[in-house]
């Protein structure tokens, strides 16, 4: 269903005019209110008056995760704290979380965008929606919650975990829609089977899955096992949370909410804008964010854009499923993991060489991805006593757990086991490559 046909089916010319108006206003706003942007614009000798067409956006500098880190926690805010009604965060690099503040206006816009996206997947007032995205700092839980409530669906805020109880509720409360990560959908299925329950016998007919990369095969698998239509939804904390784009039921790309987000595809090496159809790094500018608007944010996600009109009637450009990252970030069990976080833990433990390898086991069949970190044992940390070595392993594991937010196995290895490479080290391998 198209909740907002005025915007979702807006003719391109009109949409682009709207985008330009909003872009000009937003650029002026950040120039005046955010010292960081004022400074970087001045450094590039660009002013808000220079934005006369959408193509002029290339005059503006990019914003990266490093800028978020350097301005942690509130350096990118455009409003005084008094106007902020919510603060979300997600894991950042080197242990510094990414902070996402929202004004009441932002919350309303976000709820409306999410309602629109749920509606496009076919959710209505008559649906009972079980929200198994994590509630709390993570944008997933509350993002879906507010959107579903706005739409008028009956929301069951289960959050993640407590799987046996979730399955009981799925059966008894009659949820028709499940919102969670793809890997959790598979965990639900596996646990249900252990309980002798077939999720296909429940009232579930739709899942809105995202927050981590997942393939078409995984989608087919989930649809088969749960007896649902599995729709892909995309977003990121720096921009808004979930709500940047969503698939329509034709499943031919994710429609981007272009009235709120201006997107570009760039060559990650050169920063040059690429034409439609070419794969590159997705860059997003927020047109309506109030608390923390962002200009040309480099998402590190690799995708391509398709402007062709869609069968569903929407005119908003479609992005393909994310095919990879332009940096080393991994998403494991829904959590962002950066090699630099691992490096910082190793450097923190005295004497440990930061020669490490991250081995990822993508366990499609067993559902949960596993992370194993190989660490070379140098003379500085080597002990003749087994107890001390085991303590080292334990200590590394517990530090790693607390910094990464997920548990990883530690494997101590001999020196030089991990290949030394010229230039950028290949820090991450899939188990199948070993």
């Amino acid at each position, binding site marked *: 269903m198209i909740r907002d046909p005025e915007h979702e089916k807006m003719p391109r010319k009109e949409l682009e005019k709207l985008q330009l108006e909003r872009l000009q206003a937003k650029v002026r706003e950040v120039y005046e209110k955010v010292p960081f942007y004022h400074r970087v614009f001045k450094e590039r000798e660009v002013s808000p008056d220079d934005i006369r067409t959408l193509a002029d956006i290339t005059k503006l500098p990019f914003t990266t995760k490093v800028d978020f880190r350097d301005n942690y926690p509130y350096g990118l805010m455009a409003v005084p704290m008094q106007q902020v009604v919510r603060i979300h965060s997600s894991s950042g690099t080197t242990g510094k979380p990414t902070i996402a503040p929202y004004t009441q206006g932002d919350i309303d816009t976000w709820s409306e965008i999410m309602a629109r996206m749920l509606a496009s997947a076919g959710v209505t007032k008559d649906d009972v929606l079980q929200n198994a995205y994590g509630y709390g700092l993570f944008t997933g839980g509350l993002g879906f919650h507010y959107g579903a409530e706005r739409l008028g669906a009956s929301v069951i805020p289960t959050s993640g975990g407590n799987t046996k109880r979730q399955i009981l509720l799925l059966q008894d409360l009659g949820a028709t829609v499940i919102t969670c990560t793809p890997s959790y959908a598979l965990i639900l299925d596996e646990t249900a089977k252990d309980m002798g329950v077939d999720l296909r016998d429940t009232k579930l007919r739709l899942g809105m899955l995202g927050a981590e990369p997942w393939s078409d095969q995984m989608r087919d698998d989930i649809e088969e096992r749960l007896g649902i239509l599995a729709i892909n939804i995309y977003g990121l904390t720096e921009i808004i949370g979930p709500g940047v784009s969503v698939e329509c039921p034709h499943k031919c790309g994710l429609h981007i909410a272009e009235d709120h987000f201006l997107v570009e595809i760039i060559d990650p090496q050169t920063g040059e804008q690429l034409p439609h159809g070419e794969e590159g790094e997705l860059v997003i500018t927020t047109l309506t964010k109030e608390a923390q608007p962002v200009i040309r944010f480099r998402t590190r996600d690799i995708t391509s854009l398709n402007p062709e009109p869609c069968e569903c009637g929407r005119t908003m450009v479609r992005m393909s499923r994310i095919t990879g990252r332009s940096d080393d970030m991994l998403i494991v069990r829904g959590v962002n993991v950066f090699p630099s976080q691992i490096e910082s833990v190793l450097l923190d433990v005295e004497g440990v060489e930061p020669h490490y390898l991250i081995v990822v086991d993508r366990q499609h069949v067993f559902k949960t991805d596993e992370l194993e970190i190989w660490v070379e*044992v*140098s*003379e500085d940390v*080597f*002990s*003749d*006593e*087994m*107890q001390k*070595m*085991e303590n080292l392993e334990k200590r590394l594991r517990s530090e790693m757990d607390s910094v990464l937010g997920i548990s990883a196995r530690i*494997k*101590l*290895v*001999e*020196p*030089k*086991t991990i290949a030394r490479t010229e230039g950028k080290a290949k820090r991450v391998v899939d188990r199948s490559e070993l």
Partner: protein
Amino acid sequence: MRIKQVSVFVENQPGRLVAILEPLEKRGVSIRALSISESAEFGIVRMILDNADEGLEALRQAGFTTRMDWILSAEIPDVPGGLLNSVARPLAEASINLQYFYAYIEQAAGGKAMVVLKTDDWEKAEQVLKSL
């Protein structure tokens, strides 16, 4: 008496022991005692060599993570109760904790068994064993 021990870190895989023994053989170093302490994925190989410094060097050059430690050696009569009365009970009575322990490959002079041990207080342990 005090004695040098060479330890090496190895992964628990086929061939790793061969990889340690080869450089020692090449260097002409002989092994007097050897023990392997293993966990699921790695092991610590501890050795008493006839020339600890040479052995350590050879292993380091071969790329291993190694270390040298002082531990104690003791002679015990090769009879029932030998270990009990010469080492175990005296250390226990002095409240010294034994961390690890292994035996020599050859016998000491006079039909005695040679053992090496690490305790949590080597000076006290040395005194205790000397005074016997």
